[in-house]
């Protein structure tokens, strides 16, 4: 079992190796590099340690928790962020959240959960805080040169050579802003949801929220309570699933059906039926009829949106066409005059420190081609952890991805034949999808169904271990 317990700042040893441009590289032996100490990074550190690997984790912020740490400048959470998947689906499978927590914990509770996870498994000693990764380059022997510097670009760059790299830099920090004609001349305030933190920002204003995702719906609900008027623009009709059905968290009811192996079509029918009976016909409120079946887009778990639409506090509007000086034109020819426009239009994953070709994205489309959303062809010692948008919690998935990667690394020395077979499997399965037919699937390329995805992961693990 490879193991490296030599802790301490990796100091460059000039006798070992040089980078391509002639700078010294410190050789970290069998140590694995993990980029990011958010939820995915933490579980990668923990699982790699558990499998006997030395780990250096680089975190650009000064604390753990990544997106879930609201102090971080890249954190997308706002004051009222709560989980949208209930506890059993959200927690790490081997470190449950306290059972006296609510079904849908608040983001501050989630951060304290990660803090406890890090302390419980003594992970902080492996994390270099305030250090950002500038470059990750493959070198011969399937190893990696990782160049880091202090966050903000201060201090010299250092390069260390690692046996493997885990990319866990998250995908909810680089805002995606749609382009609209005339947006520059619009005189009102425009912001992306990533800068929305507190309902006070909405108070007394006429607010337009753009985007029908969970964040868009959350902000629309807050605007309904705080703003003087709220328009909510969505491109299409969605299924707004309540957070509770039949007195239980909706995802638990859904997984009851999954556990009973009820086929997709039947589940869709039951779902439609339940929504029809409980929420009712949404077109009555002026919302467009969904143009797809449920499970075909990212689920929206929001019990309050319809409530406020019904109270007239939210005016649903269609897509925007263009901005004017003070008004916004809608696709149904109407014009509205918001003072504040919030784009809840999502985020784009970015790996700015890595050549796109490594992840199979040579043309820079921002869409890596991976197997299991984690493994790149031709790079057996590289894994992306947490690059999934499941219809459930991410952390369970990130945990098992990192377990699979740790076992793969261990088998590279113990059973090279199995590791090689895994490599062939990666190359054959690039771009595989793990969800029922997804609407607009090029945009939602890393959307996965949690059950389909985890079953695929289970098969990969069994195949790897020959069980």
């Amino acid at each position: 079992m490879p193991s490296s317990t030599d802790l301490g700042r990796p100091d460059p040893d000039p006798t070992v190796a040089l980078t391509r441009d002639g700078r010294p590289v410190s050789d970290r032996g069998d140590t694995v590099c993990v980029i990011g100490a958010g939820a995915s990074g933490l579980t990668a550190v923990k699982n790699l340690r558990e499998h006997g690997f030395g780990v250096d984790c680089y975190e650009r912020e000064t604390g753990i928790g990544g997106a879930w740490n609201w102090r971080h400048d890249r954190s997308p959470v706002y004051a009222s962020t709560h989980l949208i998947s209930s506890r059993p689906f959200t927690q790490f499978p081997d470190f449950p959240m306290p059972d006296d927590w609510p079904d849908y914990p608040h983001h501050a509770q989630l951060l304290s959960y990660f803090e406890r996870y890090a302390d419980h498994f003594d992970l902080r000693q492996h994390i270099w805080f305030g250090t950002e990764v500038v470059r990750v380059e493959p070198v011969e022997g399937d190893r990696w040169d990782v160049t880091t510097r202090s966050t903000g670009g201060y201090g010299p760059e250092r390069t260390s050579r690692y046996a493997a790299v885990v990319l866990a830099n998250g995908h909810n920090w680089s805002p995606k802003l749609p382009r609209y004609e005339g947006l520059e001349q619009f005189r009102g305030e425009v912001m992306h949801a990533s800068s929305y933190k507190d309902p006070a920002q909405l108070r007394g204003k006429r607010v337009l929220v753009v985007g029908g995702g969970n964040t868009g719906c959350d902000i629309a609900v807050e605007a309904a309570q705080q703003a003087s008027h709220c328009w909510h623009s969505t491109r299409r009709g969605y299924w707004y699933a309540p957070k509770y059905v039949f007195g239980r968290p909706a995802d638990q009811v859904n997984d009851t059906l999954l556990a009973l192996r009820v086929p997709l079509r039947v589940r869709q029918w039951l779902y439609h039926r339940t929504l029809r009976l409980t929420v009712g016909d949404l077109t009555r409120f002026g919302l467009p009829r969904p143009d797809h079946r449920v499970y075909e887009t990212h689920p929206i778990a929001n019990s309050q949106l319809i409530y406020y639409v019904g109270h007239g506090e939210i005016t649903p509007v269609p897509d925007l066409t263009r901005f004017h000086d003070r008004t916004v034109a809608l696709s149904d020819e109407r014009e509205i005059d918001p003072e504040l426009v919030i784009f809840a239009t999502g985020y784009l994953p970015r790996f700015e420190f890595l050549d796109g070709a490594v992840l199979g994205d040579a043309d820079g489309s921002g869409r890596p081609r991976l197997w299991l959303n984690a493994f790149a062809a031709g790079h057996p010692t590289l894994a992306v952890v947490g690059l999934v948008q499941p219809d459930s919690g991410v952390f369970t998935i990130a945990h098992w991805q990192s377990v699979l990667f740790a076992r793969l690394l261990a088998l590279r020395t113990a059973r090279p034949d199995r590791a090689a077979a895994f490599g062939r499997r990666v190359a054959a399965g690039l771009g595989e999808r793990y969800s029922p037919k997804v609407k607009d699937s090029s945009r939602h390329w890393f959307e996965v169904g949690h059950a389909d995805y985890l079953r695929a992961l289970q098969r990969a693990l069994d195949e790897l271990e020959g069980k």
Partner: protein
Amino acid sequence: MSERVRIVRAWEWARPERPARREVLSVVPELEEGKPPLLFVPGFGHGAWAFAEHWLSHAASRGFPAYALSLRGHGGSEPAPAATLRSYTHDVVQAAAGLPRQAVLVGHGAGARVVAHALARYPARAAVLVAPVFGGWGTFGTALRRNPVGTLPAVFGGRLRLNRRQLFSRELPDGEARRHVARLGRAGRRAQWQLLTGRQPEPAVGRPPVLVLGSPDDRVVPSAALARAARRYASAPLLFPGMGHDLMLDARWREPLDAILDWLEKDPAPARG
């Protein structure tokens, strides 16, 4: 233990265990020595009190933060007549994850079976199975032979009554033994049944080293069962002749505990696999 790891647990996610108020007694050393916390899990009928008697304070005096849990329906925990092995496992994992650092799980009797289940859901630093009752009909047969009156009602959902002779050696003063037996409670009816018929534990996560110990003169766990339990974890049991089933309450309670702590201080290597 070549069984595969289970990733999809749709049924468990869909039906999370009901929370129950748990009693956790603790004795923590005055000086933090960086030793892993121990979580003691008593067997059926026993509560955290069984470890509070001697073991907690002795472990703490040797620098180990020591905690003892009462499974739901036992000791000072919330009554839970409908508890199952899964509820008990939930209690152990919750208590373990609630400790400040990665814990060593120490299960006694049927509590060892619960710990074995918990090991599949929590990567313990190490595990110790003390006089483990892994259940099955063989164990039942032994109990029936040794104590038919106390055992038979359990088949029909009644209480399993263990007597002094099963639990303690003759060295333990009679008064003390009576006092302990009087404190015994009962496990959930379904949990008792599952001990006989339930599914065997899944493989442990996080490759914890496992120590099995017991007494060849235990009147609940026969030597063969002890050896079998140890073989599950690729080891042999550590034996303390002359002691009863309740090693933590018997007259020579110090010896097995010191053996456990010595083993932990040697920092056993992780299990293979």
